[in-house]
């Protein structure tokens, strides 16, 4: 049973059929099998948040999930969120605020930030800091990221009737 198992899932809206070894985690599946290298691997033990993706609409650490567990699931990565335009405003806010330096944490950070913005329309800075507290960034000191998320939340509020 250590042999590869068939899985069928949807990744960024596209159907994917694959055979994966049970031990392959979702992060490595995305990166090595599907070449979706925007999902980054920073610690492989669930602490740094760099590998954060969405599975069935909810954020997960893709290093803490087996690829076989995504059978029948819908997985969304930074590439998908970028192409759909879903987070274009958030990305623009990150750009305007220089809320990234090396960029290695950024895909996971964006996925986590979008998760918060979908759940709460008007998070204050403390809530933003708390929601992102599992995503490590060594470069920015976080403030620019918090600013960008706060700006996006306000802009989205303004856009609503």
């Amino acid at each position, binding site marked *: 049973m250590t042999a590869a198992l068939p899985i069928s899932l949807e990744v960024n809206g596209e159907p994917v059929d694959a055979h994966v070894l049970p031990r392959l985690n979702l992060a490595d599946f995305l990166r090595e099998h599907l070449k979706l290298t925007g999902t*980054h691997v920073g*610690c492989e033990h669930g602490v740094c948040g760099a590998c954060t993706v969405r599975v069935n609409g909810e954020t997960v650490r893709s290093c803490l999930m087996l690829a076989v567990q995504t059978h029948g699931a819908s997985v969304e990565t930074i*590439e998908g969120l970028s192409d759909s335009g879903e987070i274009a405003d958030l990305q623009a806010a990150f750009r305007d605020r220089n809320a*990234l330096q090396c960029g290695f944490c950024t895909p996971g950070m964006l996925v986590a930030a979008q998760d918060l913005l979908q759940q709460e329309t008007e998070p204050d800075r403390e809530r933003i800091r708390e929601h992102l507290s599992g995503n490590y960034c060594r470069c920015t000191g976080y403030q*620019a990221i918090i600013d960008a998320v706060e700006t996006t939340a306000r802009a989205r509020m303004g856009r609503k009737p």
Partner: protein
Amino acid sequence: MTVASANPDRLTVLDRPNSYIGKVVPRPNLERLMQGRGLYVSDMELPRMAHVVFLRSPHAHAKIIGIDAVEARRMPNVIAVVTGRELATVITPWVGVLSHLKGLKSAPQHAIAIDRVCWQGEAVAAVVATSRAVAEDAAESVRVEYQELDAVTDMRAALDPETPVIHPSLGDNLAFERNLDAGAVDAAFAESDEVAEADFIFGRHTGVTLEPRAVVADWNIAEQRLTVYQGTQAPHMVQNIAALHLGLADSQVRVVCKDVGGSFGIKVHIYADEMATYALSKLLRRPVKFVADRVESFNTDIHARDHRCKGRIGVKRDGTITAFEIDDLTGIGPYSMYPRTSAIEANQVVNLVGGPYRTKNYRARARVVFQNKNLMCQYRAVGHPIACSVTEGLVDLVASKIGMDPVEIRRRNLIADDAYPCASPSGLRFEQLSHHAAMSKLMTMMGYDALRAEQTALRKKNIHHGIGIASFIEVTNPSAAFYGVGGARISSQDGVAVRLDATGSVICQTSITEQGQGSESLTAQIVGSVLGVSMERVRVILGDTDNTPYGGGTWASRGAGIGGEAALQAAKILRKNVLDIAATILQSSPAELDIVNNAVVTASDGSPRIELRELARIVYFRPDTLPPGIQAELMATRHFVPREYPFAFTNGVQASWIEVDTDTGFVKLLKHWVVEDCGTIINPQLVDEQIRGGVVQGLGAALFEKCIYDERGQLTNANMADYLVPMSGEMPDIDVGHVVSPTTESELGAKGAGEAGTAGAAAAVANAVNDALKPFGAIITEIPLTPQVILTALGRI
């Protein structure tokens, strides 16, 4: 707020219409990184690429009796298992010493250990397989027989006669010692009204770049060329070192550096496992990829800051500081790191202590010892946090003794803003600093007096807030004095080539590198401004030894100041060349023309004359229409290195506002302020974010980060759950202000800003905690300031 430059004419070339200098401009490379479309080394795959996993010593110090890899070699998809002895046939060992650090000694270090391992984590064999997972499986079945040796772990005992000598051929465990005695220290202390002293203890910590170190080495035997894809800050240094130890000419090695997931000095060194990866590619004749996993990162990325420093300060009743004295001890692991050496941090501590202040009386001793722990070397703000914490801690201690406000004592002792140029007792030469202007600005930004009043009011409610101040100086723009004079082939100059292509766009190749600081952006901003070309028409190429001028790279806060000046000078030449040919085409004179908004215009009224696109078309495709003898040169190259000052010192001051829960020992960071002076600011946003990121690295050191070794030399918290990095939930907002004193060493006037945040943050926090604890009579001179440390100091446990 900006203090006007002494010579306002100097910046004309940058003050041109549509200048990008001093403006917030988004970095051109952000979009790719935000969409997950960057290319980090860990993303790379090449045909026939194999993966290497290093089997690492579980012991801090042991003899290798034997390695049995028979079973591992038989496993499916395993390509090779290579021992240190086997690898030594293709790569030679190295010794991490430099001649200007007199007396520094170290022992030969191999890419993979041969007879003996000297720290837990040193590689003893390389397992190469078709995937990382398979290589890890095979590594588990390699059996190594060790004979454990006594480990030297406590730096304080390293020099005791009964302590084993790690490298017997060196005679003792002392790697380096420096002594300095300036002024009349004994007399100064004798004349002091008060003297304060303390032992300052700094936790060993490490960089924790989010992308671990990664390299893909590709030896093409047919071409006899090695291509190294590596996240490095210094591609030409890697090229030279790889060639030297593999027996190749530099021209046989190409180093390519794409996106880099954080560096901070971690990725400016030559690591044994990276050297082994180059060698394995040569040995196996195929691309080999090494990506450190997080545990390996903790065990092998350089550590830093493990210092114990005894400090002493004297003061007159009126607040005049009479003298500083320090005795610094640091343990660097079993080898001095290659090629920059592990003596630099202690050397910097000696250089920098007391640096902001007027006193000329200063005595220092620094000793650097070997021990069986992971290697220590230069990490962001090398030596600065230690020097700053010791200096500023002592200043606060002695201010408290004479009952003087911490700000007041600093104002009475900081070097006057009009006293420059001058030199420090340790021989540092300062061109122009602005300590007093910075302090004044800080006071305004933080509302110092109001905060003091708030602190007093809160104390009555048993709520304990503290204010900590830390002035600092910062080494930037290093000349050859840093490494080159000691014999290291590490370039201190950088080069930039700028060319106008056939459609009027600009291609710019620079030897500085990008790890997120904004090298690409600042280069494009400077080139665009000087040339009169919009930034989106400027493409910057960096990180490729085949395709950029030769230079140092990005480290020690040199990218903007040195690489930026080279860009400015190259762009000026190209501009002149463009105007010359434009004058020919337009039958005008260069002096009457200018370039604005991608077009040559009449200088006097800005009226458009010829688009650069059109000029380029003529030059490249219809040169036959130009007069005989006219050859356009639409490419220009310039290099730059500071010559007058060995380093461009900058200065600044930080303040921290914190709350201590005296029941639990937990510290809450409420607010942080920084005022710094990095000279000309090319992009204010990039500078501010460098400062903020640097501050948070310092805050991590102040409260959280520590590599915890046990007495047997085992790193016991080599994972991200146990090694605590600063996360967003605990970090404060940080206000950043500037004073601007450009350096006259360059036309650009820019100094560095990469170290400033880290230099003073921990000192400010430690002073704030001590300020908060004043009613309890507790003084702490140790970081990280954990709840355990604070509760212990309070006598609660």
